[in-house]
């Protein structure tokens, strides 16, 4: 395959990755790297693939964030609060990386993802009772208002400690495995904190770029970021995420849940396979 063909294929795959990544709050990398696109289909070395994946997460996050903030979905306070947990987790991850077996972690994470795919589908926001927010959510002013088809609606925020704990875990995992933090971030907000789904995915989308940027320095200096490879990825993901941001408002939350579950189901299987096959 020559360079032009390769770039064209990658541009199309990246466009889809950016589109799905922005809609689900997972980031383009989750769709790109574990989905065999880069590593298997295009036979790209894992280091180059990691570099391109990191850039794709930042591009998804940046491309869609402006539209999500403008439309009023993103909860910046919850985002920053949880990002602090993720940053602390990433530091812990860097310290414990040497002590843990990456294969075992990958398998455990894969099983967690399979369970999450199921849990995410099972939640039905419509029948949940309107209990008051967690005390921490009141103390830190986390409640918000989100746009709906029938006008703005107030929402409550539950179980903040569990959300923060999951974020720490997400940070640790991304420090250890390099990917997958978006999945845990959405879960922390959706399943633990019981936020409306679109608030969870858009807030995740806002912060995954910041988490990824924290690793960018290392990736650049180690030479993982190849311009020729990353160019079509970045452009495709960027345009894809802009498209995703446009369609989010009109999309049903339940359809998003199905897409999210399918993506993390694939990611979970991939993780378990990699962990068992030892290709991490």
């Amino acid at each position, binding site marked *: 395959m020559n360079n032009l063909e390769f770039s064209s294929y990658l541009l199309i795959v990246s466009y889809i990755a950016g589109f799905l990544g922005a809609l689900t709050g997972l980031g383009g990398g989750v769709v790109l790297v574990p989905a065999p696109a880069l590593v298997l289909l295009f036979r790209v070395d894992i280091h180059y693939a990691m570099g391109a994946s990191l850039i794709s997460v930042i591009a998804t996050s940046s491309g869609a964030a402006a539209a999500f903030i403008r439309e009023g979905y993103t909860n*910046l306070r919850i985002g920053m609060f949880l990002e602090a947990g993720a940053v602390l987790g990433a530091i812990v991850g860097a310290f414990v990386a040497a002590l843990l077996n990456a294969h075992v972690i990958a398998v455990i994470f894969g099983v967690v993802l399979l369970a999450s795919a199921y849990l995410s589908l099972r939640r039905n926001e419509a029948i949940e009772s309107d209990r008051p927010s967690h005390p921490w959510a009141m103390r830190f002013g986390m409640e918000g208002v989100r746009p709906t088809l029938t006008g703005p609606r107030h929402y409550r925020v539950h179980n903040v400690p569990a959300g923060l704990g999951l974020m720490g875990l997400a940070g640790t995992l991304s420090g250890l495995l390099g990917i997958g933090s978006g999945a845990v971030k959405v879960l922390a907000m959706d399943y633990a904190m019981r936020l409306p789904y679109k608030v969870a995915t858009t807030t995740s989308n806002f912060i995954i770029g910041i988490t990824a940027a924290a690793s960018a320095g290392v990736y650049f200096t180690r030479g993982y970021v190849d311009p020729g490879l990353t*160019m079509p990825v970045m*452009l495709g993901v960027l345009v894809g995420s802009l498209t995703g941001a446009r369609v989010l408002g009109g999309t049903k939350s339940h359809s998003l849940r199905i897409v999210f579950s399918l993506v993390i189901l694939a990611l979970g299987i991939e993780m378990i396979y990699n962990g068992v096959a030892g290709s991490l």
Partner: protein
Amino acid sequence: MHRSLERIEARIGMTLTAGVLFAGLLVACGGMLYLLHHAGQPVHYHIFRGEPSDLRTIGGVVHEAMTLSGRGLIQLGLVVLVAVQLVRVALTAWLFIVQRDRVYAWIALGILAVLAYSLFRKG
């Protein structure tokens, strides 16, 4: 108070959009130059060689981009994309400072410090 909040949120959005489009433009221009010279070459990404040292440091990337090398321009666009993340956290911190929201201002500044440290440390 509420209006100033919305204005800063709009500014975060605008800065993000402008920065990202600028980064995209650099990458697109670099990509065209790159493909102009290398379109017919076979790809070789299955072997990891690492990037040349010029494309690993900010100074080197800027220097390469100045010579209008396609790969240099792309890499500069990617560096800009990462830099936009710093700006966005800084703007978010500013948003909380204007709101006199001390807890969140400190949280955002803390994240900014960790991010800046991770980007500018040596090695």
